[in-house]
């Protein structure tokens, strides 16, 4: 039962502590980028699936500028076998709608070469953070999808059974393959890149696919293909100065705090 696993990753600013420029855009120029932290769990899940099914392969896939190839190298350093880069100026400024279309087209291409079994995603990205790209990609492909996966219980060449974290408990769900699975942090403890992996990542060469290579029109992807646009960004309103609860003893502080809670109708 060899699986053909794909893990979708993104190169994101390595901090969320960004400001806004005069035009109301996030100040991310010059901020270092890295593998989106939530994707580390998806990469680890891909590698563990691969290790559990001899003969399997795992490929990392990303949409981004040339420099985004670095996150493909990071995935390889962590145990993934190969990478593919969807790139070109036409992909700039895409939202989840346009990006998921690009990913779905790349997956179709991979699927045509060798049938894809499972596509893994992180919970969301640390920049836009919508947490919908995995499900939207599945929708474009008309594949099964599941979000908030905390455990991959079983997998064979036809189906995958997962545990999904819901607000009120845990669902067990079985999906026909191919399927898109969005993971959460609870799924595993990502390993660090190995020395062997790092060596392999340095040597890795990635295919680069443009919109034309994927059979997409430039109007379908990037800013042109986006269904929504961020008109402007702003810092959240500042919070008013806080109140310090003082007191000679802990009991006095506790009583004062509860007074305030009662006064503000919070209890």
């Amino acid at each position: 039962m060899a699986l053909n696993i794909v893990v979708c990753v993104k190169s994101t600013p390595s901090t969320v502590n960004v400001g806004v420029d005069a035009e109301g855009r996030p100040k991310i120029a010059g901020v270092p980028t890295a593998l989106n932290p939530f994707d580390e769990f998806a990469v680890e899940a891909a590698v563990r699936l691969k290790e559990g099914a001899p003969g399997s392969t795992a490929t990392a896939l990303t949409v981004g500028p040339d420099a985004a190839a670095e996150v493909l190298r990071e995935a390889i350093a962590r145990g993934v076998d190969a990478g593919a880069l969807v790139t070109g100026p036409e992909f700039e400024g895409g939202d989840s709608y346009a990006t998921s279309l690009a990913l779905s087209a790349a997956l179709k291409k991979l699927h045509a070469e060798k049938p894809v079994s499972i596509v893994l995603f992180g919970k969301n990205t640390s920049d836009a953070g919508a947490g919908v790209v995995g499900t939207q990609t599945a929708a474009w492909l008309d594949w099964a999808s599941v979000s908030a996966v905390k455990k991959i219980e079983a997998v064979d060449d036809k189906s995958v059974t997962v545990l999904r974290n819901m607000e009120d408990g845990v669902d067990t769900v079985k999906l026909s393959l191919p399927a898109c699975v969005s993971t959460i942090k609870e799924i595993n403890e990502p390993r660090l890149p190995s020395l062997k992996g790092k060596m392999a990542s340095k040597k890795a060469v990635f295919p680069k696919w443009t919109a034309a290579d994927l059979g997409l029109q430039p109007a379908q992807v990037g800013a042109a293909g986006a269904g929504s646009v961020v008109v402007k960004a702003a810092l959240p309103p500042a919070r008013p100065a806080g109140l310090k609860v003082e007191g000679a003893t802990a009991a006095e502080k506790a009583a004062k705090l509860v007074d305030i809670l009662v006064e503000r109708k919070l209890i």
Partner: protein
Amino acid sequence: MANGILVVVIPSRGTLSPSSYELLGAGKVLADALKQPLLAAVVGGNAAALAGDVASRGVAKAFTVEHASLKDFTEEAYAKAAAAAAEKSGAARVILPSTIAGRALAARLAVHLKAGLATDVTEILSDGRVRRGYYGGNLIAEVEFKTPVGVLTVAPMTFPRAETAGAAAPVEAVAFDPGAPKTEFVSFQGETSREIDLGAAEKVVAGGFGLGSAEGFKPLFDLAHALGAAVGASRRAVDSGWIPYKHQVGLTGRTVRPKLYVAIGISGQIQHLAGMASSGTIIAINTDKDCPLMQMASISVQGEYAELLPLITNEIKARKGHAVPA
């Protein structure tokens, strides 16, 4: 041309959650802004039985989609059902909750309806644009839809709950074809404890690395119980194995927007603030008066949690015990 604001209500295990009424509240704000009728669709198990309640909360018309394939939640079947209702309604905007199910449905619906998508919306502007946090809530984005139809999910605890208003609107059942299902629902394991869910909690009491151990969460749970609050935690407390991941608040955990957030022994790393900075009143209890959370809190109490928490808990119990019933 698309017209109408459709609120998609998804019953959870056959019942309506209070957040459904928040969705209707958000729908009313958007309907008023765009001067379009407010519509609702109840999608899922028990939809027909629940439609009357929804239809009596200020909507012009309600739709129901009920089918054997919707007994339990699966992404494709529910999305197809919601799409059938959205198409039948002809709505220009479709509103769903920012829950695990709501988000997945919104994602699939957006593709199905060829619609732009905005998730975790916290504000609806008078011109119909919406605001949402990004970069972990450090920035607020103003989002505009470029497509005739727009899909949005609404962050919990951000919009007023719609009240019953006059006579119930007409209800129409919508048929849909689930096709051959690709996802099979196997089973559900409910929470055994009667803890309050973090995401929809009005009050949250959260603990951090400053609690020192799993044992440190005991007085915190007592305080949460006295307050009727859900329990949250920082990443370091979760990573230390003191409390399960489901309690984690922050960038890699849950986002919360309670009226009251009590942070105990949490220094306030930016990743934690990302998950709770939109809370109403923030109380910080910490020995370090200079840590970020103490600096940004609405109310700060410097001191040892082990000493303070039992005193606060007892004080709350005493006040509640002496309260004159309304």
